[in-house]
């Protein structure tokens, strides 16, 4: 078919036939595009199916209560224990540390960019944030192990070679650009008239930012926090490289720990035979991780829908 079709000659019979074949082609293309769009649903279904079927096989051998509430994780050594709490605690230790660094710094950066910065600062800061966001996680892992950890050991001599603190710090740096850019979007969506109104009442820039703009953008800010923490919990390489491989229940960030993600990597690096209980642990831990991040993502979407201030 040619690209340009002007039907100036009126409805001759050949034209009608061409029209009907054209219609079939149109419908065919639409159908193919629809199938491509359905692929994403298939991927979601695939993830859920794979994780659930293999996890069911795991729970046939290990009671679900032992898995969720057991306090010892030692699946590769005899006597075997399959209590996931130490891995969960490790993941949350990282999330807390990363959140303590990434969230405030990210929000402060966003406030500066949207409320104070001129065009020049934005043109420098925005690409810097984009590059920080694009650096691969394995690079952050290298940075944690060879730069942050020696620094920490200089300050706290009891720090282990592998420790949760240095992994938390780099994961915090990793989520920072995401928080900054999402919060920036949210803050900029607050109409200028609100700021002007506050200034007219004699508020200082600090009061305008913290008492007017930030509350006005709160839903976007909280949603970005939730998304960032969900990213932090799924982070894999930095924690595998820097945080160690010692699953334990501890709140001391200077010790070596293991996260859920790091455990999954550890098993897949070794040669655990397919079909053994150890092999199924990958899927059980992966399913737990998936459920946690899924809930966080749904929560973020909900916060955005529910508590959004609609400005006209």
């Amino acid at each position, binding site marked *: 078919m040619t690209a340009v079709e*002007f039907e100036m000659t009126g409805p001759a019979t050949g034209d009608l036939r061409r029209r009907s074949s*054209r219609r079939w*082609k*149109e419908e065919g293309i639409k159908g*193919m*595009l*629809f199938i491509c*769009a*359905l*692929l*994403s*649903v298939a*991927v*979601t279904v*695939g*993830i859920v199916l*794979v*994780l659930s079927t293999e996890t069911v096989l795991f729970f046939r051998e290990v009671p679900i209560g032992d898995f969720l509430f057991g306090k010892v994780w030692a699946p590769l050594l005899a006597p075997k224990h399959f209590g996931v709490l130490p891995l969960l605690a490790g993941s949350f230790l990282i999330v807390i540390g990363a959140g303590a660094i990434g969230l*405030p*710094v990210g929000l402060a*950066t966003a406030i500066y960019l949207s409320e104070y*910065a001129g065009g020049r600062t934005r043109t420098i*800061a925005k690409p*810097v944030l984009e*590059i*920080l966001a*694009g*650096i*691969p*996680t*394995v*690079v952050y*892992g*290298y940075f944690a*192990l*060879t730069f942050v950890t020696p620094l920490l050991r200089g300050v706290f001599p009891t720090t282990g070679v592998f420790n949760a603190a240095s992994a938390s710090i780099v994961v915090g740096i990793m989520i920072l650009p995401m928080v*900054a850019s999402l919060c920036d979007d949210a803050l900029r969506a607050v109409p200028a008239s609100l700021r002007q109104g506050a200034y007219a009442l004699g508020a*200082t*820039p*600090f009061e305008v*930012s913290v008492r007017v703009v930030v509350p006005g953008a709160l839903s976007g800010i909280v949603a970005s926090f939730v998304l960032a923490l969900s*990213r932090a*919990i*799924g*982070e*894999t390489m930095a924690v595998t*490289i820097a945080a160690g491989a010692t699953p334990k229940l501890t709140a001391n960030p200077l010790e070596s720990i293991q996260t859920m993600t790091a455990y*999954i*990597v550890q098993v*897949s690096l070794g040669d655990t035979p397919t079909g053994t209980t150890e092999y199924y642990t*990958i*899927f059980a831990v*992966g399913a737990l*991780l*998936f459920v946690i*991040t899924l809930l*966080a*993502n749904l929560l*973020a*979407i909900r916060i955005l829908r529910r508590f959004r201030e609609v400005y006209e």
Partner: protein
Amino acid sequence: MSGILAAPKNLRRRRTQSAVFRWLCLSLTWLCLVLLAVLLVHATREGLPWLDWQFLTDFPSRFPERAGIRSALMGTLWVIGFTALFSIPFGVAAAIYLEEYAERTRVSSMIEVSIANLAGVPSIVYGILGLALFVRWLALGRSVLAGALTLSLMVLPVIIISSREAMRAVPGSIRRASYALGATKWQTVRHHVLPAALPGILTGTILALSRAIGETAPLIMIGALTYVAFVPQGPMDAFTALPIQIFNWVSRPQEDFHALAAAAIVVLLAVLLLMNAVAVIIRIRTQGPRS
């Protein structure tokens, strides 16, 4: 300021508070720049002495001075090539459907929700899916193809989301003008919407693929090998990739291997910066004439 009106008593304190807050935000913003600089300088300083032609053309080795990234570099090229091949057509097609064709039905809102959720799924979960689906079920083994398919699924939501944004930015008047001339829906999309959205689609796709290049966890899951002394000859061959090689070297205790990792990081970051630069250039060049 006017001296006639009496200033509020607490004005000085509030002004100080405001100035302190401004400086705090400013310095935290600069902290991002400093962190990026420290990271880049640290990796470059450690890695640069090892970075030479021989490093790019040699295979990995037990001896640091003889080790190179040839197989990793070639493996990355193979995997990313196939990832682009799979993910771009499907991603753009899905975006066209959702942006141009889809009516507000149950099915299309289901697709939307699942894309939004897939974008937030940790990359390692895609690795688990790839392991079960491609390596075991389709019996592709630990091949380039299995790796590329896994990464394709991972970048698919990113490509869909950015392509949709690009198409949404195409003014509706262009579509209506095309319909007015008697063009069908597909002709309108094919000849008017897609060309106009192409720069945006390209930018988003390049950024998505650059994310896939640095991705390590899914490839480890599907069993990309950590020691490979050959270049893959076809899609069914075993492979390694740059981030895997970096991970392998970082996890060794010897200092020399850490330096090798740094050198490989410099190469990886150079590739990524190059891709980002291309994306930025496309964005700037096409932003000019509009509006």
